[in-house]
């Protein structure tokens, strides 16, 4: 087996044969990611309606279903309508503290079976139990940490109370977000990711970041586009107007 030192030495030897072969550079990075991120946030605080329209257009183009509700209080009813529309009986959700709302009481009253992930839960038994519930549920409810207008993309960070399977195992994924999550371009996402990794509390978030651009899809059989091959067949974005 090759060790790291030997492996790197070989690469270094080859690299040293190419002094100044190309004058290329990497992409220019923000000197201070936190400040750059803050600037983007400030600009978006003004421009969010345009970003939202763009998101809606792009999201619908890739078969996403867009919803708009006035405030958090209206969210459970919107989720209930989506669940009924799909004929769903059970839902899994992120931890209410991660979501910013608790949809369980209202949905349970409608006769739906709701399982919420709990922050801090991480033992083996809880893991298996949750996975089983997520695999059986027809609807998964999450937030979204960034919402990218340019491509109609929902960006989700995993973490405590934010299981990665909620947006993956159920047939229908519902992501709820407000105006402060909107971004316009991939370039801005780059800045946000730089800022996220430069911040001292990065250990707080989980090990996975997912960019979700529409439902799961394949065209592997005779190039026929088919949705929901492994992941969700439907993706819904619920925009909450109230700041």
């Amino acid at each position, binding site marked *: 087996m090759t060790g790291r030192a030997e492996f790197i030495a070989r690469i270094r030897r080859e690299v040293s044969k190419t002094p100044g072969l*190309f004058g290329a550079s990497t992409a220019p990075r923000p000197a201070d990611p936190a400040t750059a991120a803050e600037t983007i946030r400030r600009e978006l605080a003004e421009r969010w309606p345009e970003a939202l329209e763009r998101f809606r257009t792009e999201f619908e183009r890739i078969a996403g279903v867009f919803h708009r509700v006035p405030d958090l209080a209206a969210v459970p009813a919107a989720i209930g309508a989506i669940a009924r529309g799909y004929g769903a009986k059970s839902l899994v959700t992120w931890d209410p503290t991660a979501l910013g709302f608790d949809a369980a009481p209202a949905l349970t009253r409608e006769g739906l079976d709701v399982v919420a992930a709990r922050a801090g839960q991480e033992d083996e038994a809880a893991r298996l139990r949750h996975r089983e519930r997520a695999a059986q549920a027809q609807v998964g409810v999450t937030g979204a940490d960034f919402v990218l207008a340019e491509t109609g993309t929902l960006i989700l960070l995993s973490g405590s109370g934010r299981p990665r399977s909620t947006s993956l195992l159920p047939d229908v994924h519902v992501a709820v977000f407000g105006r402060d999550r909107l971004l316009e371009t991939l370039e801005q996402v*780059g800045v946000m990711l730089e800022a996220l990794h430069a911040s001292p509390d990065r250990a707080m978030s989980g090990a996975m970041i997912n960019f979700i651009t529409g*439902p799961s899809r394949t065209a592997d059989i005779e190039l026929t586009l088919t949705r929901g091959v492994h992941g969700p067949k439907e993706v819904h974005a619920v925009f909450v107007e109230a700041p």
Partner: protein
Amino acid sequence: MSDALLRTPFPERAGAALKDTFLQEALKIATTKFIDLRKESFAGFPQGEALRDRARAIKEATLQHLDVHLERLADNVERLGGHVHWATTAEEAREMVLRLCRDRGVRMAVKSKSMATEEIDLNEALEHAGVAPVETDLGEYIIQLAHEKPSHIIAPAIHKTKGQVAELFSRELRGEFPADPEILTAVARKALREKFLQADMGITGANFAVADTGTVVLVTNEGNGRMVTSLPRIHVALMGVEKVIPSMTDLVVFLAILARSATGQKLSSYTTLVRGPRRAGELEGPEEFHLILLDNGRSRQIASTLREALYCLRCGACLNVCPVYRQIGGHAYGYTYPGPIGILLTAMLKGNESVRELAHASSLCGACKDVCPVRIDIPRMLVELREHLDREKIAPWTERVVFKAFRRLLLSPTAFRLSATIGRWAQRPFVRNGRLRGLPLVFGRWTKTRDLRPVAARTFRERWKELR
């Protein structure tokens, strides 16, 4: 690829593909569709051209300091609690995965599509060691059940009809399934969902790895990449060393052009950033994360002829536009990586001798270079490769003699003039309908499959003289 297939000479493999009428139809439809999707996607994206330049520059700059970026990547992966392994050869990489399987009692491994694992023939090795490898990308799953190899980098099963898939699923999964892509996809979803939940290990490749943050990035459409990195207790990622990029800022440059080049999407359905094993407080995710860095002939090319092939993103765009690939498909190439870029990658991984025939499976039209998201100069490298084959006396002697004679002709104006006169006289018996056909001797190998233009009645030089 099987040795039996490679023992057949390339012209015969290509000939068989040309006679396969279904393959011909499937290739035409698939490649044309991919070309249109790509074109449409870049048409509405004016900044695309500048981003392609940017992406190329990032690849150049990263290779220039590859040692530094790899060490940085390794340090950061370890800081996040992952393990890093260094594999000089395919065999070492296989051995590392097998050892992990042995040590951790792994019985089944679910895989998301990875050309790097194809390159090292990992599935065969796993099966041999009693570990069941399950391909979970729908196309890869189909060809695994059929015991075949991928025929396109991003659409591995384009050579199969829905009827063939229905037959295959009915036999292998015990059922009666109609030839309906939607139903067949649902059948695969159900069968593979069980595997995802049962498997002990998830194996992936990597589209990128960000050195700064120790992040492995997977770009997928089906969601299987997310499954294999979220559900099993161990995640192993295998990547060629050239996949490392410096920062998150660099990553978004590549993301903006990768899916557009491959399928014409703005972004693929899923871009998954893996930052080591699951963290404290996290309910899901693997408890162990292993990153295997694979050299397998790559580092030799950093300062050599095939350097630019190390920029490749594996998007498949050059396959779709290649007049040779469009005719013969991926299998006829005979190796893991098909198409124009595949010839170069094969030479890189298996040595120049392995492509003595394939180096000529290109018209040098340059369509590949035009669509390549990082503008890899594939035609130039193919010419250089042919030159190497000649210099290393790997090319057949007849070819070497003919080209040497041709070189002499081109270097001497008198000889060139004379050859036109002789040629005009000598070609007479072979000109039919304004084309040269059925030439004798070694030249006949050209005219057997192609027509040649005859020497003109009056050459340009002769006309030029009169015009002056």
